[in-house]
């Protein structure tokens, strides 16, 4: 218990110091574009804990959730298919590397042509960025299946769905989770970017509107909210990761200590 408290303390120490520095350094600021932190904090509740929660925050998170979910499912499915077949992998790899190297924001104008300016476009932007880390990590994970385990499965005639689930997916899961973690941060960035084009709701949209309306403290509060959301999502991710990969962390920590 005290161990957890200490870890929370370590994690919070630097942010607390930095926020304090920001607070006091900006206290007397008269610069219109860099208002005192106290003013930003003061406008925060009125700005976000009102109708904007339903009008902007919720649509953003919904689009992120759908886009991330689709990318996760598609990435793992395609990754399993590609990773388990040497020929398919050899043929698709150069193409995948090329597609991955395209920065998703430049796809926005093309996606607008294909999918319009509605939610579909915004979800597709998120998918187009989140897919690659998941897919490529899954491919690597599948390829790195322990040959001894694979042979054991063959010997015991573990085939079909059971082989996929217990051998392939399980062996690849640490890499899949790594890909999923990278995809999450990419997804948050793309969520904001997609809302800066042709939007009428969302966090990115709200921040741009505050900027255009010269409501600078509100704009900063939006930036802070985005940061907080990022932290919250990564904490959630860690909790899920610990449950899913408990066996893996256990098997790695086990022999080393205790």
């Amino acid at each position: 218990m005290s161990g957890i408290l200490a870890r929370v303390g370590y994690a919070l120490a630097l942010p607390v110091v930095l926020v304090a520095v920001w607070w006091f350094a900006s206290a007397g600021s008269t610069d219109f574009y860099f208002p005192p932190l106290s003013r930003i904090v003061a406008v925060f509740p009125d700005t976000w804990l009102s109708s904007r929660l339903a009008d902007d925050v919720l649509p953003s998170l919904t689009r992120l959730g759908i886009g991330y979910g689709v990318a996760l499912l598609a990435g793992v499915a395609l990754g399993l298919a590609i990773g388990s077949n040497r020929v398919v992998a050899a043929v698709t790899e150069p193409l995948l590397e090329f597609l991955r190297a395209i920065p998703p924001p430049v796809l926005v104008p093309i996606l607008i042509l294909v999918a319009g300016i509605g939610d579909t476009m915004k979800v597709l932007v998120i998918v187009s960025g989140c897919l690659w880390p998941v897919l490529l990590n899954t491919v690597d994970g599948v390829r790195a299946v322990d040959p001894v385990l694979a042979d054991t499965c063959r010997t015991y005639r573990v085939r079909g769905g059971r082989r996929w689930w217990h051998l392939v997916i399980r062996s690849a899961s640490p890499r899949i989770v790594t890909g999923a973690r990278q995809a999450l941060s990419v997804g948050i960035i793309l969520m904001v970017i997609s809302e800066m084009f042709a939007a009428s709701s969302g966090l990115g949209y709200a921040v741009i509107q505050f900027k255009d309306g010269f409501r600078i403290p509100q704009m900063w509060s939006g930036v802070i909210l985005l940061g907080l959301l990022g932290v919250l999502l990564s904490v959630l991710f860690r909790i899920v990761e610990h449950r899913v990969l408990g066996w893996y962390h256990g098997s790695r920590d086990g022999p080393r200590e205790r």
Partner: protein
Amino acid sequence: MRRHLAAFLLAPTLLASAACGADGADEPAPGQPDKVTVGVIPILDVAPIYLGIEQGFFDERDIEITLEQAEGGAAIVPAVVSGQYQFGFSNMVSLLIASSEGLPVKVVSNGNNSTGVDGEDFAALMVKADSPIRTAADLEGKTVAANTLQNIVDTSVRQSVRKAGGDPTKVRFTALPFPDQPAALASGQVDAVFVVEPFQQAVLAEGGRAIASSYVDAAPNLTVAAYFTSQQLLADNPDLATRFTEAMAESLSYADSHPDEVRTIIASYTEIAPEVIEKLTLPTFPPEVNRESVATLADLALEDGLLSKAADVDALLP
């Protein structure tokens, strides 16, 4: 090949310097000319300042201008307030909001006005040829594209809706750059667009029709945009501001009385095709800000909730 590339890259620079050098750059002015940077948007509204530079109205007053092109007024305001630009061009509603939020901006010259003629303005609220929408009141529950939100465009469109008997709070706005709007309208992604020239010609060419001249609906002979500076510059160098105002007034009058030269100069800083330039409806360029129209805009912006409190129009205008 490489030489071709260099020529290609240099051409615009040379053209630009040719356009600016009407009075000769090497003719030393008495004293030192003030070097100023002005933030403008590359649209026909700013033709007078290009013409004024070409005609030497700024040189005569010892002002050496560099024009910087920006995306929109909201991007120019911070640059002017921080002193990066000495003057800037912005639509009137953005300036009203900036000023009421406490930004130290001050209008120094008129920019451009609507023609004041319904159905024959340089901007229009437009729909597709086969759209069931007949008047602005039919826009309730529909989506309208505007270049950016919270500026003169959505304020004016809401007034068109109000004037036609509709409820402007029921209209949805989507921010979409002008060049993307004709395609978005044609493919049905938005129900209506508010476009300025030359995009008005693009929508017309696709068979679209205008349902309102929103700038005309907002106020008679509306001042759409203005040139502004910071209170800081006004305090430090009031003489420069005065000379800029005089040069702008002369440029505006010149532009207003020489529409053919306006059309010629537009070709130098925009990519509009010559055959389209001939068809464009030009804004008017009166030298004085239409104060009454700005007061009306302030009232409309307050009613729409763009302003949190009534704007001090006299503090903003010269």
